[in-house]
């Protein structure tokens, strides 16, 4: 067999890639036929619900399950914690009640009698002084980088301090600021959970997961069986955003209950449990001082930030501060704040949205101070960046974004816009970077003698259009239509594919499916070459036929070609290893976004007028779903910029806005106009497929905060920019 070239066709030649293909599972989803984990109903199943700790910090004095067992319809009570246990956050599950119906399970949970000793709690992560007083801070690292080095006799720290002060003295413009972003919850619309069933010692878990190939082990380890006895299935998932990688202790408990009762068990977290314990993004608050030269190019950055990722402290990594922009001289320090909140989980682009919102706001304040356009300051500072994308690409994207926003015509200096009654408008910019490397992935392609094609891969459809993308890659390779391909994903017994996290899926499945189908095609060519009196390496698959290159008259239909396989289907597989060099995929993207807002100075309400997102992602597989992901990321960004945050009660440490009615998310009327531009010039397309899920969700916090600052002439320091904070900032600005 000739050497197979694992490459993509050119833009001109590609018949499927780069063309918008509607989701193959779209109608199934929109008429309610798609079965999510929550929708799996097994015969004779029990419904389980759980009781969570009502306090931020407490000790269980006693648990009495007898009243719950007496409730009609309750079959089993499983204790997850015992008397004497200390619970460190609100919502931590204590006991699970399995019953014949939701109503009975709920009544059973309400009947559980638990006595608590309430212990002191701390949840106000923004209050660094209080955290220090209570000894709840931890060192979270830092870094100092200076162009000048200390002499042999210098004390390093003294030198650094003196050098930093010297750099500030030399600076023409100095900005001091405070910025931040509160913790938010993932709030997946389908809560975490499973429907589980045993067949002897084999467990089948319908599990809402972003990690179909990787959760079997979690169940196996916890249940003391081996992974080969676990099958995890997830054909559709109602949101994950980084929070659904594990088996999770509640699903393991459901498996125990199932074993104990000999019946299938469905356990899904309640809405408030979903918000309280199933995923949140760390908060971040920062004090910044920066110094710039006369052109506004930052020469020295000095910052200290803090925040919480739960009981262990941590918070936002110091490694991404200052974000994208990286002056030659900087000092950054980080402090973790331990709070009585559940540990954070990865949230779309971990660390980056907070880092962006904590640093590019300061760059915007520099523009404000100088009275020049943020566009110019952002452009000039591209000479010092730390990014996996080039300054050149950012420049081109800035230019496109500015055109789409009509930036130059609409811009006014901060706080100098014309007011319409109490309404003032403003614009802001931010930019971001991300990796998006292709994850590990294996796939098998099967070609049937009657022409049918199937693909098999243990990846998952998160809403990003993965099922459709798998079909597109195979169809492109075989010269078929995506609807011709039967795609099998979402089961742990399929060839192993990586978790969907970090924007690694599109690259992963593109690699494995392209390679496997090229391997399959080479075999098919060999089998059909004789019929076309040509050599296998002379053949190509185009437009539903297999033909001789350069001699299109010599061709044979796909189905007929597959007939040459005889009675046995042809199978070929391939694997991609994360990090392996390949011309099919790579990593490193940028992206520029601009926001235009209107702020009511009387009510403090911020309304989105227009938002522009320009995004590169290497080769675009499916433009329509790529655009959807960017729209979605922007809307999620509007959400954390203007609406959502975790609120806790200082007295009890309880998460008090954990119901849907109280946890504010934007609705359809709140998003304004959104313009998305896929940036795919040939030099970017050449880089191959790169992941897209995270990058566009990074910039909105900073871009919207900057737009509000531009409108008001004062900074509202902490996201979300709720009316109360806007009014407070206006008051403080006047004082």
């Amino acid at each position, binding site marked *: 067999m000739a050497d197979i070239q694992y490459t993509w066709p050119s833009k001109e030649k590609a018949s499927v890639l780069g063309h918008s293909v509607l989701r193959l599972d779209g109608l199934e989803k929109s008429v309610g036929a798609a079965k999510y984990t929550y929708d799996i109903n097994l015969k004779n199943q029990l419904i389980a619900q759980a009781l969570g700790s009502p306090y931020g910090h407490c000790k269980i004095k006693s648990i009495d399950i007898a009243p719950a067992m007496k409730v009609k319809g309750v079959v089993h009570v499983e204790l997850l914690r015992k008397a004497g246990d200390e619970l460190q956050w609100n919502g931590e599950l204590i006991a699970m009640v399995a019953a014949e119906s939701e*109503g009975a399970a709920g009544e059973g949970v309400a009947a559980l009698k638990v006595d608590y000793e309430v212990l002191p709690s701390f949840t106000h992560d923004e209050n660094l002084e209080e955290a220090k007083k209570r000894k709840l801070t931890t060192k979270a690292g830092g870094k100092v980088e200076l162009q000048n080095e200390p002499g042999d006799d210098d004390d390093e720290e003294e030198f650094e301090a003196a050098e930093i002060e010297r750099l500030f003295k030399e600076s023409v413009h100095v900005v001091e600021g405070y910025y931040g972003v509160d913790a938010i919850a993932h709030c997946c619309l389908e809560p975490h959970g499973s429907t589980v069933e045993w067949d002897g010692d084999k467990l089948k878990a319908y599990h809402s997961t972003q990690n179909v190939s990787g959760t079997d082990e979690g169940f196996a380890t916890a249940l003391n069986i081996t992974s080969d006895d676990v099958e995890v299935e997830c054909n559709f998932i109602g949101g994950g955003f980084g929070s659904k990688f594990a088996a999770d202790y509640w699903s393991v408990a459901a498996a125990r209950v199932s074993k104990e009762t000999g019946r299938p068990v469905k356990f899904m977290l309640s809405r408030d449990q979903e918000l309280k314990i199933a995923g949140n993004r760390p908060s971040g608050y920062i004090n910044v001082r920066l110094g710039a030269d006369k052109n506004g190019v930052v020469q020295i950055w000095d910052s200290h930030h803090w925040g919480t990722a739960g009981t262990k402290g941590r918070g936002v990594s110091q490694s991404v501060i200052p974000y994208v922009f990286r002056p030659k001289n900087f000092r950054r320090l980080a402090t973790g704040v331990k709070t009585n909140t559940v540990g954070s989980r990865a949230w779309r682009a971990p660390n980056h949205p907070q880092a962006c919102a904590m640093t590019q706001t300061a760059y915007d304040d520099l523009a404000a101070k100088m009275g020049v356009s943020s566009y110019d300051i952002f452009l000039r500072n591209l000479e010092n960046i730390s990014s996996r994308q080039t300054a050149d690409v950012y420049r081109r994207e800035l230019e496109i974004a500015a055109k789409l926003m009509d930036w130059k015509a609409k811009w006014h200096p901060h706080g100098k816009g014309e007011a319409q009654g109490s309404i003032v408008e403003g614009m802001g910019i931010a930019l971001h970077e991300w990796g998006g490397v292709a994850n590990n992935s294996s796939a098998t392609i099967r070609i049937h003698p009657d022409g049918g094609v199937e693909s098999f891969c243990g990846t998952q459809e998160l809403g990003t259009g993965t099922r459709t993308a798998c079909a597109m890659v195979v169809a492109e390779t075989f010269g078929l239509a995506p609807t011709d391909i039967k795609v099998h994903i979402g089961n742990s017994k399929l060839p192993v594919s990586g978790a969907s996290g970090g924007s690694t899926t599109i690259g992963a499945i593109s690699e494995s499916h392209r390679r496997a189908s090229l391997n399959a095609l080479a075999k098919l060519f060999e089998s059909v070459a004789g019929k076309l009196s040509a050599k296998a390496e002379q053949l190509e698959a185009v437009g539903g036929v297999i033909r001789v290159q350069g001699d299109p008259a010599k061709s044979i239909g796909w189905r007929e070609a597959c007939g040459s396989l005889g009675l046995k289907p042809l199978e070929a597989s391939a694997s991609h290893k994360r990090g392996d060099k390949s011309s099919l995929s790579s990593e490193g993207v940028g992206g520029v976004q601009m926001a235009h807002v209107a702020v009511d100075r009387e009510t403090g309400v911020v309304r989105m007028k227009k938002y522009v997102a320009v995004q590169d992602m290497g080769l675009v597989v499916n433009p329509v779903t790529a655009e959807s992901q960017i729209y979605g990321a922007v*809307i999620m960004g509007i959400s954390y910029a203007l609406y959502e945050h975790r609120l806790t009660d200082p007295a009890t440490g309880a998460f008090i806005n954990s119901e849907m009615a109280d946890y504010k998310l934007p609705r359809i009327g709140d998003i304004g106009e959104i313009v998305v531009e896929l940036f795919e010039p040939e030099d970017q397309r050449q880089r191959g497929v790169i992941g897209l899920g995270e990058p566009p969700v990074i910039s909105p916090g900073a871009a919207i905060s900057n737009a509000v600052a531009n409108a008001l002439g004062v900074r509202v320091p902490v996201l979300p920019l709720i009316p109360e904070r806007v009014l407070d900032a206006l008051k403080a600005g006047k004082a």
Partner: protein
Amino acid sequence: MEGVSQSSFTLPSDSNGVIRMRDPANESGNSTGGGSSGTRSSENSSSGFSRRAFLRGSSAAAAAAAMVARPETASAQKANQGAEVVSGFKTITLSVNVQKHQVNVEPRTTLLEVLRYQLDLTGAKPVSQDGSSGASTVLIDGRPVMASTTLAIACEGKQIQTVESFGGAQPDSAPVAFVQHDAQQCGFCTPGFVVAARAFLDKHPHATEEEIRQGLNGNICRCGTYANVIQAVLSATKGG
């Protein structure tokens, strides 16, 4: 917000109190407004069920106790007079997607539970118990209601239509428009959105983009499909 009407009460997850209900199909819509939401309450209905009290548990004595124990507003107390207490399981007939089904319900059983667990119609989703997400939207006598805040027993004699009825060989134009404009990502909110959109379009066949932005505020999407939903619904209007 006109696209989706909300029924009047919340089912408290931890309450041992009384649940009052009214006829969801005779409701006029309540606005949630942009970005805001919440539970709504009002007290009036011509429905035979509207002034009956139900209890969460299954004993009539507990019901009486709960009715006394719970602080009530004057109007609520008035509403409770003459309340008929129903408890235990009861077989009722529901008409769902033009088919009659015998289902077994308790007073507390929601329409959503019946659809999902007894009829395996899982298109309507459980996202929030208080109906503030719109994910469980179904049509009752042609009007959009949250199945999560509607008691099954109140739906006897009414025509219930779920998102599944929009499928089949000739799918409804609303879900088709959602597919064509890629107005779904994870898709968990989508069935609710599709039903709300259908009801909205029936009422406003010539809706403008601005009206769509105002009229579909009862549904939440976490993946952020709103921009596509606007285009989908716009394309399904008479002018679209």
